[in-house]
């Protein structure tokens, strides 16, 4: 009887009505929308300064801890009367953080310079990550102001990271390869099976489906973008095959793929604004 009492509550009917309306909104917004609406843009932009500030503080704290460690080490070295080594050790520690950053940026720059005629690239810094566990996304510190539009591919020198799914004035959201809604046309680099689709499985791993049953695919084989989806240029490394399985219907194989990019350690990324192999994402309007 207690169960039926709930139907007499006004709040229950209001919630039910709200849920039904929202379900319709979910269905509508689940279809590919052209971008963020003004409310979404406003909410996203309200967080951007705070997230940039936090990123700046995190960098500062990293440098401070390096300095603190340096001071601690120096006192140990003083005890052993190695004055010259102390100074060098301290300097090395103080420089290590910035050196690591310079290295990362240099790799991005080298990669960018190595492809002057193929990709038009834009480097961006990661300022935040998804606020929930369902979505696998990153927020970068560049947006429409820098000519970024929906569906542009995002890479690092190690391989494919994902694509832009939301772009506001000063920030953009990158959907990672590991997101459950992600699917990329892929080709096995050695066996040349080109009908595969790599999809995210949510736990940091990828799965390649649609591999023909007769394929000679083996563990360790590189998987690269096929270019068939037209969003991604062909030949970008996605990862390497880890484990091959036969699907229940026996007609196709699937393979778990270890991503080439370590998504947990990403700090900067490159966005491909255009590439010559096909029409740029901006031209496709998707």
């Amino acid at each position, binding site marked *: 009887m207690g169960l039926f009492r709930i139907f007499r509550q006004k709040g229950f009917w209001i919630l039910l009505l709200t849920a039904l309306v929202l379900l319709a909104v979910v269905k509508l917004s689940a279809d590919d929308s052209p971008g963020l609406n003004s409310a979404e843009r406003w909410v996203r932009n309200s967080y951007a300064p705070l997230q940039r500030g936090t990123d700046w503080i995190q960098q500062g704290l990293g440098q401070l801890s390096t300095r603190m460690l340096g001071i601690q080490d120096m006192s140990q070295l003083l005890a052993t009367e190695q004055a010259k080594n102390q100074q060098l050790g301290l300097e090395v520690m103080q420089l290590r953080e910035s050196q690591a950053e310079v290295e990362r940026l240099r790799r991005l720059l080298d990669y960018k310079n190595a492809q002057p005629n193929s990709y038009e690239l834009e480097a961006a810094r990661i300022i935040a990550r998804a606020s929930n*566990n369902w979505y696998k996304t990153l927020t970068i510190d560049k947006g429409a102001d820098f000519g970024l539009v929906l569906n542009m591919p995002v890479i690092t020198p190690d391989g494919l990271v994902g694509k832009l799914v939301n772009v506001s004035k000063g920030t953009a959201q990158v959907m990672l390869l590991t997101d459950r809604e992600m699917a990329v046309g892929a080709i096995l680099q050695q066996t040349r099976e080109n009908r595969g689709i790599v999809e995210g499985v949510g736990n940091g*791993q990828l799965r390649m489906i649609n591999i023909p049953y007769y394929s000679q695919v083996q563990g360790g084989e590189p998987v690269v973008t096929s270019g068939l989806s037209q969003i991604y240029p062909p030949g970008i490394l996605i990862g390497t095959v880890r484990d091959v399985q036969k699907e229940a219907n026996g007609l196709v194989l699937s393979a778990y793929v270890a991503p080439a990019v370590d998504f947990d350690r990403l700090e900067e990324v490159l966005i491909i604004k255009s590439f010559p192999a096909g029409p740029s994402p901006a031209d496709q309007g998707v």
Partner: protein
Amino acid sequence: MRSLILVLLPFLAIFLQSTLFRAIPIQGVVPDLLLILVIFYAVFNGSSKGAMYGVACGLWEDLYLGRMIGVNAISKGITAFILGRMQGNVYQDNLMVGLIGVVTGTVINAMLLFIISMVAIPGLGLDRALLADLLFQGIYNIVIAIPLYMWYCRSSRAGVLREGQSG
């Protein structure tokens, strides 16, 4: 003052989830501070008010995420409505009430998110990764909920969250 705090808390929760807690994840999973807040609000204010607050907080999160608008609004609204039934039936000052509420709410919210997301992701199945995420989120939520519930309880009785508090 109370209303202002209740508006600021969801804003702060999303900010912390996307920055600070992303630096200290457990198995890649971060706590759902917003859900914890909604559950506490529902336990102290009942089903109807809880559901309204849940829908509002969820909608704010959906706008921030910019993907499927309404998913979190529905899941958090219904979760709050169910857990709001605890009000009047339990001794709210008991920490265990808050923790049981958080565990139950985490499971209900995850189930609802999964069901609603099937609308957008064809072929989405309940796999080991999803269950592992749920397990670690439950653990992380409990860890965070202990100090938060103590604060929330105190604030609701004699602090900034006390009903009628005009500050």
